[in-house]
């Protein structure tokens, strides 16, 4: 009975430490406010926002979504490997996730360069202000996430993470999933919303 209760409690615990969830909740709330602000501004100037949206390349957005989803999948595999004590598999999965993060950064840089070459900047109009600012802030999160993944990868190579010790890995994974989730919200908001 006591063992079952303990198991249930273990099954229900938050991944990582509680503090990382404070960070995730607050960070997502800030993005949430920006999303609301974008929607309110869009209502005021629907034609401009709709016209500007059509100049974005949805292929770039789609590819970036796939890249981040793949990276999240690798992070899930890394956590799973640690929990199953397949210690040798953790580092390669984290490396693959990190490479996806770099790929996202390169793809975003190409997209920005394309816009700037076309004479579009964040000063062009309110839509592009939101486009560059929101995706730019998100890109900073991706860059920070790559640093986190690099630290986790280095520790994983030293065999740090296993079923008994994976709180740090869970914290990093939770953050990376938040970065992924934010993009999943940003992509339809900026590229697809009609």
């Amino acid at each position, binding site marked *: 009975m006591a063992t079952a209760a303990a198991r249930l409690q273990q099954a229900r615990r938050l991944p990582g*430490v*509680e*503090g*990382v969830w*404070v*960070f995730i909740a*607050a*960070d997502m709330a*800030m993005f949430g*406010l*920006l999303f609301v*602000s974008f929607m309110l*501004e869009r209502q005021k100037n629907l034609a401009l926002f709709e016209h500007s949206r059509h100049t974005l390349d949805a292929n770039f957005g789609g590819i970036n979504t796939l890249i981040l989803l793949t990276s999240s999948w690798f992070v899930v595999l890394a956590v799973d490997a640690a929990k199953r004590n397949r210690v040798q598999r953790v580092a390669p999965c984290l490396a693959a996730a990190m490479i996806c993060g770099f790929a996202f950064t390169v793809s975003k840089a190409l997209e920005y360069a394309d816009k700037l070459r076309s004479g579009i900047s*964040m*000063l062009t109009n*309110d839509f592009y*202000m939101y486009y560059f*600012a929101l995706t730019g*802030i998100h890109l*900073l*999160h991706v860059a920070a996430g790559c640093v986190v993944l690099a630290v986790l990868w280095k520790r994983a190579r030293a065999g740090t993470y296993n079923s008994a010790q994976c709180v740090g890995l869970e914290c990093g994974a939770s953050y990376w999933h938040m970065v992924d989730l934010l993009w999943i919200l940003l992509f339809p908001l900026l590229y697809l919303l009609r």
Partner: protein
Amino acid sequence: MKPETYSTDYTMWRLLAWCGPIFMTVFFFMWGVFAGNLPPAGADLDAAQITAHYLNNGMAIRIGMSVCMVGSAFYMAWGCAVSKVMRRIEGPDGILSNLEMMGATITCAPLLVACGIWLTASIEAPQLPPAIIHMMYWLGWMIIDIAYMVTTFQIFAVGIVFLRDQREKPLMPAWISWWGFVTCAAFFPVSLIPFFKTGPFAFHGLFNFWIAFFTWYIWVTAVSFNIIRAISRLQQEDGAASPSAAQQRAGVLITG
């Protein structure tokens, strides 16, 4: 040559820790409420409107900015108390407590300079051309806002050290360290203020004023009150570890 044992003056630590709430109170009421920065006049106002703002609120801005120039030094003093508590966690060779103290000290510089510029603008508004007053208004905002990286280093150092605290009940609740990281994240979009006069990224906007400033305000307030508690706990730890040492720390200077 006989050994000397110096006392740890926890009363002084506490006094410096209370400088945090004093700083927050002074800035909130004198800079925010009294001088009319809650909300700010706005990045979208033209030179004539900004000059009118200074002419209409000249005395309030003059008093508010004068008090804030004095009050900003309390942030530095508070930073010393935080640094001392951090040193107890990371040891004498720790570098992050130094980074925190430097960050707190240098954070005073943009506060002092910006308030000094706004103070001068309030005094000179009747004589100077509106374009100059407008320039001074913007200059103050650029300095107070885009110096955020100094404070970011301070907040980052505090967060890392208190998360490393190995005590069963840490001196600082973990959520405050994580809230500090949120504050750091909220600061970076402030770099966008030179580009916008309206919207969430203008210096008076939703993100770069209301979110960036208030996440920091909450962080300073939360750290302040927990540092005051942490000092009492450190004093108790000293007493529990060695009652005689505690007596000495309480003020007996053994010179023999």
